[in-house]
């Protein structure tokens, strides 16, 4: 086991930030911690890294208890902070070299690792640039390079794509998958469900410091009753027709607003066919039709009763 957190409790005064949280991360996983802002994602990361005191619980990394002076464990961990954590006075190369040097004292060995990290994040053309001359996306890449240059076995990324443009975001996500393919175990926190769905092999959803769901994205979606969401563009739908539609088998809910009929159906087959058949029978004209599978937001909504980004 790469990380084992057992029954972790962290309080800030009266506020319970982590409420008896347990989690396990296995070797080779991309483990996603998903939750809205304030759900406890960063707090659990800081506890795992032994930066934060906690009130109760145990944390093991590489099957050994984690502590501030557990240097053998720390040597194999790479951290990418939520905010860019580099020195403004050092160039791109010097920043990566500095942080790598905290893990790898040998100068010759370090030089190769730094070059590899620069290649990996694509900052070759910017190696002599100071951070203030870099764009937001390039800065994030530098932030990542500083965390991975020493080739850690466990890489923790705490919301690395906040305030990053879509192109850089894709670049970062592809890089994370590549790191995983090269053997690193990844812990990835985010409140962007699309990112977590895209790259994570296992996802834990947090809310108010508690784990509310855990599994692969398919397993999470299987936990809820929603099967699919069907949206139909239609120009006239009377109230009694909407009521009759809601009584069709396997329909969870139906709403009509701004010429759009949105129907949520439970798991099962032929939901779309049944709805179209109803519209034809009632001579209701319709235009475009969309069908969507449930998202992690739907999972969060069904379990907590609120949107993930509330």
């Amino acid at each position: 086991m790469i990380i084992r957190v057992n029954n972790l409790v962290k309080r800030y005064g009266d506020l319970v930030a982590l409420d008896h949280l347990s989690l396990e991360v296995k070797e080779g996983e991309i483990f996603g911690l998903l939750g809205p802002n304030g759900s406890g994602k960063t707090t659990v990361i800081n506890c795992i890294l032994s930066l934060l005191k906690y009130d109760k619980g145990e944390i093991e990394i590489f099957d050994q208890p984690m502590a501030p002076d557990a240097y053998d464990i720390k040597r194999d961990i790479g951290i990418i902070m939520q905010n860019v954590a580099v020195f403004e006075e050092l160039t791109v190369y010097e920043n990566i070299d500095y942080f790598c040097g905290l893990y790898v004292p040998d100068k010759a060995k370090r030089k190769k690792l730094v070059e590899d990290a620069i290649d990996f994040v694509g900052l070759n053309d910017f190696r002599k640039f100071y951070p203030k001359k870099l764009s937001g996306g390039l800065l994030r890449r530098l932030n990542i390079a500083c965390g991975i240059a020493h080739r850690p076995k466990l890489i923790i990324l705490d919301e690395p794509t906040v305030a990053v443009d879509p192109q850089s975001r894709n670049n970062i996500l592809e890089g994370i998958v590549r790191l995983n393919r090269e053997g690193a175990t990844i812990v990835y926190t985010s409140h962007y469900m699309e990112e977590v769905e895209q790259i994570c092999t296992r996802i834990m959803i947090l809310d108010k410091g508690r784990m509310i769901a855990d599994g692969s994205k398919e397993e999470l979606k299987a936990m809820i009753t929603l099967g699919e969401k069907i949206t139909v563009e239609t120009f006239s739908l009377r109230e009694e027709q909407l009521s009759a539609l809601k009584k069709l088998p396997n329909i969870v809910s139906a709403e009509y607003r701004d010429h759009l009929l949105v129907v949520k159906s439970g798991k099962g087959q032929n939901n779309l066919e049944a709805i179209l058949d109803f519209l034809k029978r009632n001579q209701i004209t319709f235009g475009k039709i969309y069908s969507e599978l449930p998202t992690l937001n739907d999972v969060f909504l069904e379990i907590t009763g609120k949107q993930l980004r509330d």
Partner: protein
Amino acid sequence: MFQHLFTARLKCLTRDRQMMFWTLLFPLLLATFFNMAFSNLNNTEAFHPIDIAVVDNDRYRQNKDFHSVLEEVSQGEDRIFNLTKTDGEKAEKLLDDGKIKAYVTVGTEIGMTVRESGLSQNIVRAFLNSYSQTSSAVASIVRENPASVRNGLIEAVSDRGEYTREVSGSSAEPNNVLNYFYSLIAMSCLYGGFWGLKEVTDIQADLSQRAARVNVAPVHKLKIFLYNMCAAILLHFSEMLVLLAYLYFGLKIDFGSKTLFVLLTTFAGSVLGVSFGAFVSALVKKGEGVKVAVLLAVSMAGSFLAGMMSEEMKYIVAQNVPVLSYLNPVNLLTDALYSLYYYDIMTRYGWNMAAVCAFALLFCLGSYFMIRRQKYASL
């Protein structure tokens, strides 16, 4: 590891332009301004001969004794007066034009005319009084005992022998201007606190994300802090050497003959300043702006009380609140430097340095106890 962290830290510090300005250029600029402002201060305090006139009439010419005495004190480098002989009308005009402070008229009595009162006029009056009293005493004695002239009366009266002996504690001349420059050096030492402040900010995970990243590395944070402090002290001491060189070679400020001790004092001041900044940063649990404000307030208040803005303040504090003199690091350093310049014996310097070292030790230990924790209650 030491070389890697130390050189990287030196790069970080030397490339911080804002801090380099405050810790290096600002003291140099201030020293230049001080030099411009105080260069004539010693000259104004030195004694300058007083411009007077004497009405050159028959009575004056006949009064051989007064004539010769006045001529004598108006000659040579140590003269008291710049004497102009003229007639009464011209003397009046010279006085009106402010070209002389007073003019002397010899009649039945010796008189003095002035337009205003002041130190110069008092000196002229004291001289004339002294002459009148002495000549009157001689006249009385000769009247009573004419033989006394033969027995050396005139020589005895003329002899201005001193009956007290002046013993100086120093071979150096007192120099009030030096205190301004020494307090500037002391203030610059305290400005090393900016570097100390930065060091704590960059090692405390609850103060910066950079520090959090350093804290998760497999190196003891106090080891990194120690290496970083070494870089900060080396840089700040180098800045202080530049300042000393500028003061000594550029502005010709006198530091006395104990050069090695001046360097030692400056080094101790650097350590004190950097450790003071680290202590303030660890102690004040507010934003960086508040920490800088505290540092500046203490440095400036300390400099003021040590006499950097007005030299009298140093003596006011010493007379009225002496304990403050020993609690003010700027004053301790200023006094240590002045002791090196002025006193031949090292007792006073020793006490000052002991207090400086005690403060540096206190700040180092205080900082250590505050930042030694490795886990934080909140980030």
